[in-house]
C-alpha cells in the first residue's frame, strides 16, 4: 500500500498542477517502442568502433602490433595511443586539495595499462562484427607489474605503485574540523577525555562500503557525425553540456564547433555523468576519417570500464555520555579512487565529509580522508555520491551506541537529533540545515510499521530460538542534495558553477516552450516541469512542451546529477516564468487601458483588481507577436531567461524502518517489510516521487544484500557480467510502504527539497542494522555489505565458534 494522500486532486487552487499525480507525457513513446536511444541511430556511411581492452590489471606495454588488424576484412582504420598524438588528457573537474596527484589518463593508454578494461587500441570497421573480429588480430605484449587492489594496502609503504611516477598511491588528503571551522569543539580531545571517564562511552568501528556500480540498463553509446554544420555527438549521457565543454577544453575541437545531444537516455544514477574516453575516441576517429562513427559498449565492457562507486574503509569513533548524548565524532576515511580520476572522483568522499554527523547534534567533529589509487576501475558518483557512505557510517554507529548503552535504537537517535524548533541549524560540519521535523516523520513511520508489535514478535522468536530470527533496522537520515551554490563549490575547488538555466518561450499561439539545462533519463522532467510552468503562467498543462538535452537548443546548463534538477533547475524555470509574467504586465496594462500597478495576475489572466474581465497571457502573446499595438519602446517578445544559483543545498530527510528475517540455518536474508516516511518538501508530482523512492530503495537494498564489484588479488574483475553482479529482479524486493511529511524548504520559493537519492542513502544502513539486530543475540556484531547468505552464515558460525572458545578458556 502506498499511502501518499489522494494524488489526483491538487489541494492548492493557486497551484492546481503542483501536487497532482499527472500521468507522464514521456510514457507513450517509450511504451510504443518509439524512443530514440543513441544505439538506434544509423547515419549514411557510418562506421563502427570497437576498443581493445587490457586483460591484465597492471602492465607495461612492450609491443603493440596492429598491422594485421588493419588489413582485416571491413577494417577502415586502427589506432593506438601513439597513433593519435592529438588526443588530449582526460580531465578531472575536482582538484580537492593542494596535494592532489592527477595521473596521466588518455583516451588511449600510452605505454602502460592500469586496470583490467583499460583501453589500448581502437578499430573502425564497416560493421560492429568486423571491428570486433579485428580486435583479435591486434598483438599486444604486456610486461606485467605488481598489482594492488586493497585501498588500505595501497596506503602502506612499499605497496606496488599504480603510477610509479607519482611515487605514492595517495591521491589526496582532505579534512574538516569543527575547531578550524569554528563550529564546535576538538573531537580528538573530547574522545581522549571520554576514554578515561566512566560516565562516558567511546565506540570505535571500522566499516566498509562495498564497491558497486550504477548498472543502468541501457549501455553507453556514442555516435559522432563530423560532417554536420557543427560536429554533432549523440551520447547516452546525463551531462551533454559538461561533455561539450570538457571535450573542447581537452580535445582538438573548439566549443562552438561541437554540438552534444543526449537523446533518450536509459538510466543514469550517476553512471552517465562522466566525460568518457569512449566519447573522446569516437570524436577523434570520426574527425580523422571524416565519417560518422558509432561505439556502443557491451555489458561486460560496461562492468569493466564505466565507473564504479563507494569502496571506502571508514574508521569511526563516537563518544557519548551514558545517557546517549553524543559528545564527539571522528571519521578517518580511506577512499578507493581506482586507477584514474574521472570528473568528480576525488571529491565524492569529501561530499560525505559534510554529512557524517547526520541529523544529530554533534558538538565536536573531525573528518579526515585519504584518497588512494588502486589497480581497479575508477570510482565516481553513484546515486547519492558520498552521502550514502556517510549515512551508512553514522547510522551504523548510532546502532552500535544503542547496543553499548542498552538503549532502543530509536531512543538513542531521538536523544540526539536536531529538534524542530532548532532550525535553521548550523552543523559542526559547517552546513546549515534549513528545515525539518524529525519527530514527525519518525512517529509516522513507527506507527505505520507497528514498531512495538514487531519488537514483541522479535522477543518471542528469540526466546523460542526460532531458526528464522527477526531484525528491525532503523535509519534516520538527511541528504545534502542539489549540487550548487556556486560560491560554496568554488570554496571546495570544484571546477564548475552550480547554477541552472531555463528559458521560457511563449509561442504566438499561446503555447509554451520551456528550455532547460537539466536532462532527463527517467525522472519525468517533461511532466513535472510542465506542471510547474502551468501553475506559474496559469496556462493548461497540455500547452507546454519541454526542450532539453541538446546543447544547440538548450544552450546553457549544468545537467542532471546530485538531485539538482528540481531544486536548482526547477527554480530556474520558476524565475524565467515569472520574468515572462513581468514582461507581459505592461502590455496587459496597455491592452486593458489600466495602470500596470492595478493589475493582478491570477490563473493565467491579468485583470484590474476587483474586476473579472481581463486578458490572458496567451492572448497577450498573440498581440505581442502581431506587434501592431504595443506600448512604445517595448520589445515584441515574451521570452525570458533565468539562471538560478541557490544560497544553500537542499536537505531531504526521513526515517526508514526495515523488518528483516534472517534464516540462521542458511544465512538467507528476507526483507519482510519496509516503511519509509520522508520529508522531501513540497511535492510536485507524487507519482513521480513514489517512483523515485521505489527505485532508490531497490538500489539501496541491493547494495546491502546483493551487489558487489569484486576483484581477485591479481586485479581480475570477477563480477564482470550481469550473471555474477547481482542486480535485483522483481522477486528479490518487496512492495514498499511509503509516506511523506512536509516541511517546506526555506531556500527556494517552491519549497521543494530533493528525492532521487534518498533511497540509496537510507536503505543500506536500515537493512544492515536490521540484519545485525536479528543476529546480535548470537554474538554477531558486524557483517560487511553485501550481506549474502554465505557471509551471514559465516558470521553466525564464527560468532558461535568464538562463544565456544570463550567457554573453553573461561
Amino acid at each position, binding site marked *: 500500500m*502506498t499511502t501518499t494522500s489522494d494524488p489526483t486532486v491538487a489541494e492548492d487552487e493557486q497551484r492546481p498542477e503542483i501536487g497532482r499525480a499527472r*500521468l*507522464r507525457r*514521456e*510514457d*507513450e*513513446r*517509450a*511504451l*510504443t*517502442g*518509439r*524512443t530514440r*536511444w543513441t*544505439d*538506434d541511430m544509423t547515419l549514411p556511411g557510418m562506421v563502427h568502433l570497437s576498443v581493445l581492452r587490457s586483460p591484465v590489471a597492471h602492465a607495461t606495454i612492450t609491443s603493440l602490433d596492429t598491422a594485421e588488424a588493419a588489413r582485416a576484412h571491413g577494417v577502415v582504420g586502427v589506432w593506438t595511443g601513439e597513433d593519435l598524438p592529438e588526443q588530449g588528457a582526460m580531465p578531472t573537474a575536482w582538484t580537492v586539495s593542494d596535494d592532489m596527484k592527477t595521473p596521466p589518463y588518455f583516451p588511449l593508454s600510452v605505454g602502460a595499462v592500469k586496470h583490467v578494461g583499460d583501453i589500448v587500441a581502437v578499430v573502425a570497421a564497416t560493421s560492429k*562484427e568486423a571491428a570486433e573480429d579485428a580486435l583479435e588480430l591486434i598483438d599486444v605484449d604486456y610486461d606485467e607489474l605488481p598489482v594492488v587492489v586493497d585501498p588500505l594496502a595501497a596506503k602502506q609503504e612499499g605497496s606496488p605503485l599504480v603510477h610509479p611516477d607519482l611515487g605514492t598511491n595517495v591521491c589526496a588528503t582532505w579534512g574538516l574540523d569543527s575547531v578550524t571551522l569554528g563550529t564546535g569543539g576538538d573531537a580528538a580531545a573530547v574522545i581522549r577525555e571520554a576514554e578515561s571517564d566512566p560516565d562516558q562511552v567511546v565506540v570505535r568501528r571500522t566499516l566498509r562500503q562495498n564497491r558497486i556500480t*550504477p*548498472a*543502468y*540498463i*541501457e*549501455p553507453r553509446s556514442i555516435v559522432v557525425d563530423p560532417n554536420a554544420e557543427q560536429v554533432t555527438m549523440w551520447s547516452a549521457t546525463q551531462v551533454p553540456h559538461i561533455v561539450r565543454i570538457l571535450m573542447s577544453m581537452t580535445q582538438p575541437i573548439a566549443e562552438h564547433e561541437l554540438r552534444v545531444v543526449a537523446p*533518450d*537516455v*536509459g*538510466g*543514469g*544514477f550517476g553512471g552517465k555523468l562522466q566525460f568518457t574516453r569512449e566519447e573522446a575516441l569516437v570524436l577523434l576517429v570520426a574527425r580523422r576519417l571524416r565519417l560518422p562513427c558509432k561505439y556502443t559498449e*557491451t*555489458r*561486460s565492457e560496461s562492468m569493466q570500464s564505466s565507473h564504479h562507486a563507494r569502496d571506502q574503509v571508514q574508521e569511526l569513533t563516537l563518544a557519548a555520555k551514558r545517557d546517549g548524548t553524543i559528545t564527539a565524532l571522528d571519521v578517518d576515511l580511506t577512499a578507493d579512487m581506482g586507477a584514474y580520476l574521472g570528473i568528480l572522483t576525488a571529491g565524492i568522499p569529501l561530499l560525505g565529509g559534510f554529512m557524517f554527523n547526520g541529523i544529530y547534534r554533534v558538538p565536536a567533529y573531525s573528518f579526515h580522508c585519504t584518497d588512494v589509487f588502486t589497480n581497479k576501475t575508477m570510482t565516481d558518483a553513484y546515486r547519492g555520491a558520498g552521502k550514502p557512505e556517510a549515512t551508512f557510517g553514522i547510522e551504523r554507529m548510532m546502532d552500535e551506541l544503542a547496543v553499548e548503552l542498552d538503549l532502543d535504537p530509536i531512543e538513542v537517535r531521538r536523544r540526539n537529533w536536531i529538534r524542530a524548533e532548532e532550525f535553521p541549524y548550523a552543523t559542526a560540519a559547517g552546513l546549515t540545515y534549513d528545515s525539518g521535523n524529525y519527530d514527525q516523520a519518525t512517529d509516522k513511520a513507527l506507527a505505520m510499521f507497528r514498531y512495538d508489535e514487531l519488537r514483541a514478535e522479535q522477543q518471542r522468536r528469540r526466546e523460542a530460538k526460532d531458526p528464522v530470527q527477526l531484525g528491525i533496522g532503523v535509519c534516520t537520515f538527511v541528504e545534502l542534495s542539489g549540487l550548487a551554490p556556486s560560491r560554496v563549490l568554488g570554496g571546495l575547488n570544484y571546477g564548475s558553477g552550480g547554477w541552472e538555466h531555463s528559458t521560457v518561450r511563449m509561442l504566438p499561439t499561446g503555447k509554451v516552450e520551456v528550455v532547460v539545462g537539466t536532462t532527463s*533519463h*527517467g*525522472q*519525468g522532467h517533461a511532466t513535472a516541469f510542465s506542471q510547474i510552468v502551468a501553475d506559474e503562467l496559469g496556462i493548461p498543462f497540455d500547452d507546454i512542451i519541454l526542450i532539453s538535452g541538446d546543447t544547440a537548443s538548450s544552450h546553457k546548463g549544468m545537467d542532471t546529477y546530485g538531485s539538482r534538477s528540481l531544486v536548482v533547475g526547477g527554480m530556474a524555470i520558476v524565475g524565467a516564468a515569472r520574468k515572462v509574467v513581468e514582461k507581459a504586465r505592461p502590455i496587459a496594462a496597455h491592452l486593458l487601458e489600466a495602470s500596470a500597478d492595478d493589475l493582478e495576475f491570477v490563473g493565467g489572466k491579468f485583470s484590474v483588481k476587483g474586476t473579472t474581465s481581463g486578458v490572458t497571457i496567451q492572448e497577450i502573446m498573440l498581440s505581442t507577436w502581431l506587434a501592431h499595438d504595443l506600448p512604445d519602446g517595448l520589445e515584441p517578445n515574451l521570452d525570458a531567461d533565468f539562471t538560478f544559483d541557490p544560497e544553500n543545498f537542499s536537505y531531504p530527510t526521513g526515517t526508514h524502518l526495515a523488518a528483516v528475517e534472517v534464516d540462521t540455518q542458511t544465512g538467507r536474508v528476507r526483507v519482510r517489510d519496509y516503511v519509509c516516511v520522508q520529508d522531501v518538501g513540497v511535492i510536485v508530482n507524487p*507519482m*513521480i516521487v*513514489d*517512483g523515485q*523512492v*521505489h*527505485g*532508490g*530503495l*531497490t*538500489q539501496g537494498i541491493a547494495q546491502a544484500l546483493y551487489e558487489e564489484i569484486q576483484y581477485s588479488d591479481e586485479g581480475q574483475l570477477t563480477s564482470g*557480467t*550481469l*550473471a555474477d553482479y547481482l*542486480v535485483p*529482479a*522483481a*522477486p528479490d*524486493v518487496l*512492495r*514498499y510502504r511509503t509516506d511523506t511529511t512536509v516541511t517546506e524548504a526555506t531556500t527556494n520559493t517552491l519549497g521543494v527539497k530533493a528525492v532521487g537519492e534518498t*533511497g540509496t542513502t537510507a536503505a543500506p544502513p536500515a537493512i544492515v542494522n536490521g540484519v545485525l539486530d536479528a543476529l546480535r543475540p548470537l554474538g554477531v556484531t558486524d557483517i560487511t555489505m553485501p550481506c549474502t547468505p554465505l557471509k551471514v552464515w559465516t558470521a553466525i558460525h564464527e560468532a558461535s565458534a568464538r562463544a565456544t572458545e570463550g567457554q573453553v578458556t573461561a
Partner: protein
Amino acid sequence: MARITVNVDGMNFTHEVEPRTLLVHHLRETLGKTGTVVGCDTSNCGACTVLVDGESIKSCSVLAVQADGAEIETVEGLAAADGTLHPVQQAFHEHHGLQCGYCTPGMLMRSVCFVRENPEPTEDEVREGLKGNMCRCTGYQGIVSAVMAYSQTAGEQEAGR
C-alpha cells in the same frame, strides 16, 4: 549466408543473414525495428524480450536463422493501428511502470506472455514471472502494479468476449 523469412508485427521480411547473427540484431539492424533493445551480453536483463510464435523469448539468445518462418511480436506492434495503447501499455502508463523506459519493451512483451499463461496471478507470481527482466529504475513496484492491473483488464476482456 542463409535466407530467412520472419513475420514481424504482421509484416513479412525476407533477408540473407549471417549464421551468427542474433535475432535481436536482425530485428534492430536489418529490419530497423529498434523498439527492441539490448541491455546485456549474457541473456540476463530481458530488455530484448519479444514473442516468437507466442512465446516470450530473449531475442539475444536465439539466432536469426532459428526464427526462420516464425511469427514475431515486438513492442512496436502492441498498440492498435490508430495509436490506441494495448491494455498492457495502458496499465504501465497508469501505474508508473516505467521511468527511463529502456527495460520497458522487454517488460511489456514478457507481461503479455505471462498473463496469457497465468491470467489471475498473485503479486508474488507476477514477481516470479518477471524475474528474467531487469529494471534499474522503478524498483519493480510500478511494474508489478501494472501487471496486476493488466491481468484484470485482460481477464475482463476475455469474459466480455
